């Protein structure tokens, strides 16, 4: 056999195998190292701190678990959240993440390694990303081979789409969920391939872990049944499928029901019905197979028709009936918004108000996946080449995840693994072809004709090109070369379709190989650069700590959030209730340790709407609401001084919309726009806007900062009125250094029974308008 480069001949196969296995281990270790290291930008640039919003709750819960033990955590009722309602945390949380950290914490401490629980939480996501890389390796190995596995592991290790949810400090459910997702899928594939009840059970155990860890478990719950269903429809029912699915479903469902937050949902809600249906279908089919092996085919056909029709009708009726009766819960709003992207905006503004629930923009596909997004379709096509059961899984997964990723930004996360797997399959096929040192036998005409003709009919447009090399095969290799890469797709399809003539199809020479391999390497290198850049610049900001860069590139830390939260923690009474928009609820609970009205666990829309109403109303209207909820402090985020765009004025319209959903008579969105329909904060802002508590609290004494000069809001680039708003019912209690966080104290009722407006004008020596009655007392009484 001719080879492109000389190969050593005296190497034993055992040495080759051992070296390959050692190299794989080293490569996997390096990939793990790279995956962990690239997630540490946030720690290096800032510090070991918990990021964003939800992680603060998870961190707080983990601290409870670590300090008080698992049973205390299980029964934890948090009276400080959703004041005055409280929250049963143990029953309304996916405890997988906290339990994982708690177990790690306890193991380390039993070894006398006094690692702080915060550091465990911060570094959990990077650690699990290394495990994800390994799980992806195992999964892809089942698809193609080890080298594709390694590529997939490397991709998932550094791809921004996954890093975005797993940088150090991003202590969220997704941190461990992607590992569990991939590993469950791997176990499922393994169970399906071997027909092994053991792997089915392992899949069920990891499915249980996934259920305990992330609400996105429903993706597995529907993905595996869908795969099974597709296999059945393709006529690929086997006893292996039956064993794998039944063991996974039975054990997995029972196990998942042990999570209190999930409870009876697996048998009562529509999202889980597909899994149950497929389970039933599999039993029927297995039974039918059994029957078929005992009766004649004629009888069997009739029997089959009748029973299929009867069971279908019965099943459908039962499902409708049970939904109607309320035994099966109908689809939830979040689920509807997966099918109709406009649904949430119309009916559930609180879901639509979250930025990560928005449909994905095209550039973010490239940003998160770079060249993988181009390789991804190629990889899926490669799956059609062999089309084993597991390839069907990847194809189904690719289709479903692509759709979901297009609907919601955050579901990009579920697309990323399959993109990595498919791209790795494609790229590894390419590399396999071109790194393979074997050269084809010097072509004899009939053989090459076969291969090209095999390609021609499948690819009509390339017909003319395909004939060109056929006629030129007698010439030297050089003539053949340019024809080969002319059409990558044609080449690919020919690879897919033709299985004959393995030895006669191949690559000649080193230069050809180098061209392609270097190209591929170049793409990989650019991918690494892209990933590093995106990770460091876009995904590694803790958002609790902001950074600005000076003209000389020096970094200046803006720490207003923690400044204000720490002030609250140290200098207000322990039971002072803080009202803020729900985004900051978890942070206040975590950092300031004070009761909050609403937080990021948005379970009570009315309560949130109440806060929205208080923020959107005038002081007189808001005051009774604040007093009734025992609010002591109101906290707003204001970016106008610094140009921090994620502030409350920019979120204000969502507050209005959510409040309007509950009180359509009192709060109307159009009132907050100028007559020409603009959203403004300057002189031309509408009176309702200027009277609203949010506007007043944001711009209170703001104009004075400019000492008489034009006071410009740097976020909205508008000049606010020179005479700023005045406050009667609240007083400024604290404003952070860069004015990002402003805290106001709610005044207690006037001891003389006046309303605060009158009291204020009295202290300022103004005459009371005679015509004005005091309507406030009535409102308080009511």
């Amino acid at each position: 056999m001719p080879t492109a480069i000389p190969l050593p001949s005296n190497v034993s196969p055992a040495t080759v195998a051992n070296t390959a296995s050692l190299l794989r281990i080293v490569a996997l270790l390096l990939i793990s190292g790279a995956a962990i290291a690239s997630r540490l930008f946030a720690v290096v640039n800032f510090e070991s701190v918990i990021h964003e919003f939800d992680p603060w709750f998870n961190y707080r819960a983990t601290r409870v678990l670590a300090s008080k033990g698992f049973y205390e955590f299980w029964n934890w009722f948090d009276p400080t959240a959703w004041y005055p309602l409280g929250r049963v945390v143990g029953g309304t949380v996916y405890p997988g993440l906290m339990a994982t950290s708690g177990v790690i914490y306890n193991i380390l401490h039993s070894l006398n390694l006094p690692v702080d629980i915060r550091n465990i939480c911060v570094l959990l996501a990077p650690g699990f990303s290394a495990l994800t890389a390994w799980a992806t390796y195992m999964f892809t190995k089942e698809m193609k081979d080890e080298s594709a596995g390694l590529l997939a592991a490397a991709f998932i290790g550094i791809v921004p789409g996954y890093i975005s949810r797993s940088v150090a400090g991003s202590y969220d459910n997704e941190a461990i969920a992607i590992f569990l997702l991939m590993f469950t899928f791997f176990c499922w594939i393994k169970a399906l391939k071997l027909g092994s009840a053991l792997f089915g059970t392992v899949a069920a155990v990891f499915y249980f872990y996934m259920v305990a860890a992330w609400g996105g478990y429903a993706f597995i719950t529907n993905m595996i049944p869908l795969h099974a269903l597709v296999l059945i429809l393709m006529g690929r029912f086997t006893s292996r499928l039956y064993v794998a699915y039944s063991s996974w479903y039975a054990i997995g469902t029972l196990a998942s029901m042990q999570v209190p937050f999930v409870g009876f949902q697996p048998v009562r809600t529509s999202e889980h019905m597909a899994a149950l249906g497929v389970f039933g279908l599999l039993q029927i089919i297995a039974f039918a197979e059994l029957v078929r092996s005992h009766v004649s085919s004629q009888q069997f056909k009739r029997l089959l028709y009748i029973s299929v029709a009867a069971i279908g009708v019965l099943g459908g009726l039962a499902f409708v009936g049970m939904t109607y009766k309320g035994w099966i819960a109908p689809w939830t709003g979040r689920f509807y918004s997966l099918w109709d992207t406009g649904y949430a905006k119309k009916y559930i503004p609180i879901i639509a108000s979250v930025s990560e629930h928005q449909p994905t923009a095209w550039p973010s596909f490239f940003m998160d996946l770079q060249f993988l997004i181009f390789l991804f379709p190629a990889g899926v096509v490669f799956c059609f080449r062999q089309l084993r059961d597991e390839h069907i899984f990847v194809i189904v997964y690719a289709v479903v995840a692509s759709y979901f990723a297009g609907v919601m930004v955050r579901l990009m996360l579920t697309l990323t693994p399959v993109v990595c797997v498919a791209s790795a399959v494609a790229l590894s096929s390419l590399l396999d072809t071109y790194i393979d040192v074997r050269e084809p036998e010097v072509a004899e005409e009939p053989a090459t004709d076969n291969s090209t003709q095999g390609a021609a009919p499948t690819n009509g447009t390339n017909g003319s090109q395909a004939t060109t090399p056929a006629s030129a095969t007698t010439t030297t290799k050089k003539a053949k070369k340019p024809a080969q890469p002319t059409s990558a797709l044609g080449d690919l399809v020919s690879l897919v379709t033709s299985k004959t003539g393995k030895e006669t199809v191949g690559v000649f020479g080193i230069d050809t190989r180098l061209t392609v391999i270097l190209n591929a390497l170049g793409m990989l290198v650019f991918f690494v650069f892209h990933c590093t850049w995106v990770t460091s610049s876009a995904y590694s900001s803790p958002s609790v700590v902001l950074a600005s860069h000076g003209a000389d590139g020096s970094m200046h830390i803006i720490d207003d959030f923690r400044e204000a939260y720490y002030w609250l923690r140290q200098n207000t009474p322990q039971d002072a209730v803080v009202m803020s928009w729900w985004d900051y609820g978890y942070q206040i609970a975590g950092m300031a340790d004070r009761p909050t009205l609403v937080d990021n666990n948005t379970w009570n829309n009315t309560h949130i709407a109440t806060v929205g109403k208080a923020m959107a109303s005038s002081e007189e209207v808001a005051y009774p609401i604040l007093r009734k909820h025992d609010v002591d402090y109101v906290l707003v985020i204001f970016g106008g001084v610094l140009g921090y765009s994620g502030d409350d004025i920019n979120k204000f319209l969502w507050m209005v919309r959510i409040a309007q959903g509950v009180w359509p008579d009192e709060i109307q969105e159009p009132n907050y726009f100028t007559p020409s329909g603009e959203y403004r904060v300057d002189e031309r802002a509408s009176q309702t806007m200027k009277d609203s508590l949010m506007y007043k609290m944001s711009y209170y004494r703001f104009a004075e900062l400019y000492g008489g000069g034009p006071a410009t809001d740097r976020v909205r680039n508008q000049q606010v009125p020179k005479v700023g708003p005045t406050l009667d019912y609240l007083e400024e209690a604290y404003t952070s250094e860069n004015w990002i966080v402003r805290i106001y104290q709610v005044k207690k009722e006037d001891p003389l029974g006046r309303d605060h407006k009158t009291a204020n004008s009295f202290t300022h020596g103004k005459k009371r308008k005679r015509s004005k009655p005091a309507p406030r007392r009535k409102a308080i009484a009511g």
Partner: protein
Amino acid sequence: MALRWCTSLPVLLLSYVVCSLAVEIQSFENTNILRTVELGGSQVQITTTFAIKALQPNAKTYTLALDVDEQEKTSWLEVRLKGQQEGLEMAPREDDTGRYVLLDVTLPKALAVNGTANLIVDSIQTGATFPWPEKAAQAADQALKYRSDLFVISPYKTVTQKTKLRSPSPGVISHTTPKNVESFTLGDPVTKSGATITYGPYQNIPASANSKFLDEHQQRVIIHYSYEHPVLEVTKLKRAAEISHWGSNLNIQDEVVLRNAGPTLKGQFSRIDYQHSSYYKKSVSHVIPAVTLHLPAGIRDAYYYDQIGNVSTSRLRTTPSVPKGSQANQYSFLELRPRYPIMGGWNYSFTLGWDAPLADSTSYDSKSGKYIVEVPVMTTIPGAVVKEAEVKIVLPEGATDISYVEPFPSTSWMFTYKTYLDTSGRPTLLFEYQDLTIKHAQSIYVSYKVPFSAHLQKPFAVSAAIFISFMFTLVGRRIDLTLHKQKVQ
């Protein structure tokens, strides 16, 4: 070695309830008492000079009297002869009236009749001042009140005595004019010149450490003065010093709860006013924007964080280690800026720690084979008084023959503490103190032995653990648990 005064002493005092209430024979006479009070924020320094004359031969024990109220405030007291550094020995005993405490000072040599000596009593009072008005607006000035007794009491007759109160700034707002002192003075009972208020001189005061005099003549004087520095108070200080021979490192970590004990903020904090006043350099005296600390030379890896993370606003200027025995006073400076300016009545808690080369504070005595390590009780925060302090010294694992010398008495415990990869735990000393002032910034000396085997304990334990896990894997991989053997194809 002087026995220094501490408020934890009442326990000790009780055991002293003295039966030796001998007949009061006047063995001494005070020819002159001069008390100088340096008014301050949370600490007030008092120097009292007693010019004494012996009336009896062989007079060796001079007795000081201290009002109970004053004794409670005094957190440091030292008696020495004028011109000498060494403190004199003191033995406290309680008077059964319960209104004052007596201190027996043993003079270095007995005085003959009419022999004279000058005794200097240095003391520091904490909690003796209080802000007045109790609440102050953000831009208002700060004023404090100091309360004291008019007469320095003594069990002996006093020929003449005088009290000087010196305010740090000329702004003395008001002071009490004592009444009914005509029997002691002919001139003004009190004079004020600039920042100094002088009470006296008062002549021919009888023995005053008795209920009769206290009831008839003793009275309170109150000075109201403006004070232009913040009044700092450390509510709780927890220091942990961890000695590591493997890392040749002394790690010291302080957990500090800082409080502005000045007048509490009236109304609310206004950022814009604060920014304006700092822009126009009209800094307000009672706000703490930053604190500068003197840390030891040669430290590294300093860290400063609070309950919610790193505080990135501080600056550290380190100085290299000073060779042992050199007299140079060199420090590393830490400019510590809290997250927010600490207004009156506000709290701020933080953790500050650093690593220092162990050689800087340890020495090895090859004769006895003992290490001696020096651990400072506290790092002074300028002007602050430490209400409660806890010093924990963690010795290396396996240290034996532990003994310690502390600069002043405390409550202490010893226990073992398990941390980083320990198997048997580290012996740990814990000391508890109250009301520490600038004079208490001294060191505890601990000596201990570490046998060579103790050094090897940790690497041995770790390698044993790794070895066991390897063996386990080795064996585990060779056990076949398959139920059905696959047929070899």
